[in-house]
């Protein structure tokens, strides 16, 4: 089929993406592209549908309608089905009818090269910092249950460990290597979560509010940190963030959502002065 591939050169492309929960349209016909090596920030007031959009990309939810492409390859596609056919309030209801439904689980998405972090930190609580990173290497294994149990994969195991050690060093976490992940200070836990995501060797990194709960000092460090890893690992970054100083400083482009709809997209300076964005954030105060 002609549109099974979409060679626009974008690493990630969302196309007419709609997510409807019952009668609530959380994300409404959103389309956006993230170019290679770019940092795209998704912003918007609370409840705008940012995290829902993220969860569709990572396979947590299957969208109600729309498609997602990764490096030109279609990885997610759905059309309203069953009860949703009648309930559907979004646009483009007929666009994907009769096409293959593609709804991979989150692990398959990660295996494609899309890693993520979580808004509320989700580390493996009973494991050490090192083990947290080592676990992420599991998906890159070539060994099977038998060879792993009988330690016939010693070479691979050694490589996993060595790569994890190296990542710890790059992430400046080696001094807390053997501490329990949850005993780290908040900022370090964020770093560890990013490090763990990087251990899966992604090309696209999704950060869900990486600076949530951080003080200005920590936020500034994080800004530098994100910039540094983008260069070092050749990453494309797609992130949700509320801290405007972080967003404005680091983003190449910004995409703004309000009530599930895209209302603006552009360079930080353009978005900052866009009247629709100001209205969304100030609650339409000018109209009254």
């Amino acid at each position, binding site marked *: 089929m002609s549109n099974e591939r979409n060679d626009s050169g974008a690493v990630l492309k969302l196309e007419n993406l709609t997510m409807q929960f019952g009668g609530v349209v959380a994300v409404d016909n959103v389309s956006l592209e993230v170019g290679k090596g770019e940092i795209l920030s998704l912003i918007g007031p609370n409840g705008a549908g940012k995290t829902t959009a993220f969860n569709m990309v990572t396979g947590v939810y299957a969208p109600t309608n729309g498609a997602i492409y990764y490096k030109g390859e279609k990885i997610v596609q759905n059309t309203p089905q069953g009860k949703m056919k009648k309930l559907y309030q979004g646009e483009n209801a007929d666009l994907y009818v009769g096409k293959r439904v593609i709804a991979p689980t989150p692990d398959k998405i990660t*295996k494609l090269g899309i890693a993520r972090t*979580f808004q509320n930190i989700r*580390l*493996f609580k*009973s494991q050490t910092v090192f083990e947290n990173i*080592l676990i*992420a290497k599991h998906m890159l294994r070539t060994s099977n*249950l038998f060879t*792993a*149990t009988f330690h016939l994969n010693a070479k691979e195991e050694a490589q996993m460990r060595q790569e994890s050690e190296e990542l710890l060093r790059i992430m400046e976490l080696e001094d807390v290597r053997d501490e329990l992940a949850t005993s780290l200070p908040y900022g370090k836990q964020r770093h560890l979560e990013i490090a763990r995501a990087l251990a899966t060797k992604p090309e696209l990194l999704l950060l869900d509010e990486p600076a949530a709960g951080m003080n200005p000092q920590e936020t500034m460090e994080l800004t530098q940190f994100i910039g540094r890893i983008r260069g070092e690992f050749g990453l494309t970054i797609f992130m949700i963030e509320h801290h405007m100083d972080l967003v404005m400083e680091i983003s190449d482009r910004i995409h703004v959502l309000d009530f599930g709809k895209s209302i603006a997209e552009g360079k930080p300076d353009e978005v900052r002065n866009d009247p629709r964005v100001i209205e969304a954030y100030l609650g339409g105060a000018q109209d009254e």
Partner: protein
Amino acid sequence: MSKKKKMAWNVSLIVALLGLLFVLEQVMPSGSMLFTVLKKGAIYALVAVSMNLLNGFTGLFSLGQAGFMLLGAYTYAILTIPPESRASVYQYYDGGIVNFAIPVPLALIAGGLIAAGFAFLIGLPVLRLKSDYLAIATLGFAEIIRAVFQWDKLGPLTNGSNLLRSFPTFQSVLYPFIVSGICIALIVMLINSTYGRAFKAIRDDEIAAEAMGINLAHHKRLAFVISSFFAGVSGGLLAMYQTTIQASMFKSAMTYEILLIVVIGGIGSVTGSCISAFLFIACSEWWLRFLDNENFYIGSFHVPLLRAGFRKVVFAVVIMAMVLFYRQGIMGTKEFSVEALQGFFRKLFRRKSVKEE
């Protein structure tokens, strides 16, 4: 300690243990309660570790262990009863439909495989459930299996609700120790591999584990099937130990006993499960037996309350105390090792020497 040295310590400990058991068996009368406890303890240690793999390491709260032991025990018994005794065992079913016997080790493995096969099939629908729902579903499965095996129509295979007997058994206490030892070693090796790490990740945080590229359905099924395999093997061993089996033995109370062993030993500790299996069996079969004896005197004092079944009351109280005040169990999630023991003594001596100063 280096890896080699650790290995040497462990091997020499195991050899010493087996040697000790061998000597004990030569010296002590074979009817001693000690051997009963050791044999049954070794079998329960295996099934407790298999349950721990699921409940403690993968975070799947399953209560189907007795059902899988039943499958293992019946498979073992059905496949090993010598053809010449089948006529008397299956007297109501014309000698049954199985007319051959296979070697004991093969039958034990077959028992494990049958249990694993059933686990695979049950796992398809059941593993989608979480926590309590999974526990209820697996418990239900175990009860259904028990009822099905007593079904008259299956008599030619299972002998209905009658006893299965005359299959090969073991005499030496070394036998269950060696079989359980090998199986537990396999489980430990699995836990220490990259798959074991994935299991622990699922236990800690399913959503994060999935985001790290761990296929939840696949890994949960693996843990469930492997755990059931070893439960099946331990069922076979239990059949050998009991010398006769009947489906009504494998009640849900048996699963609770195993769960109790796991909780007392520490959820997430293999050595904890082993230690507490022996402690539990020793208490219930030996040390607390006197509680069931109505005519128990200390000097001329007649101890009140004691009667048949009182042991279970005491047990229940101990368990409640355990859960309320000592939730970690004996070992928590730690493991018993030579290193830890050394560290413990070193600390002990240091404290003493500090006091002396």
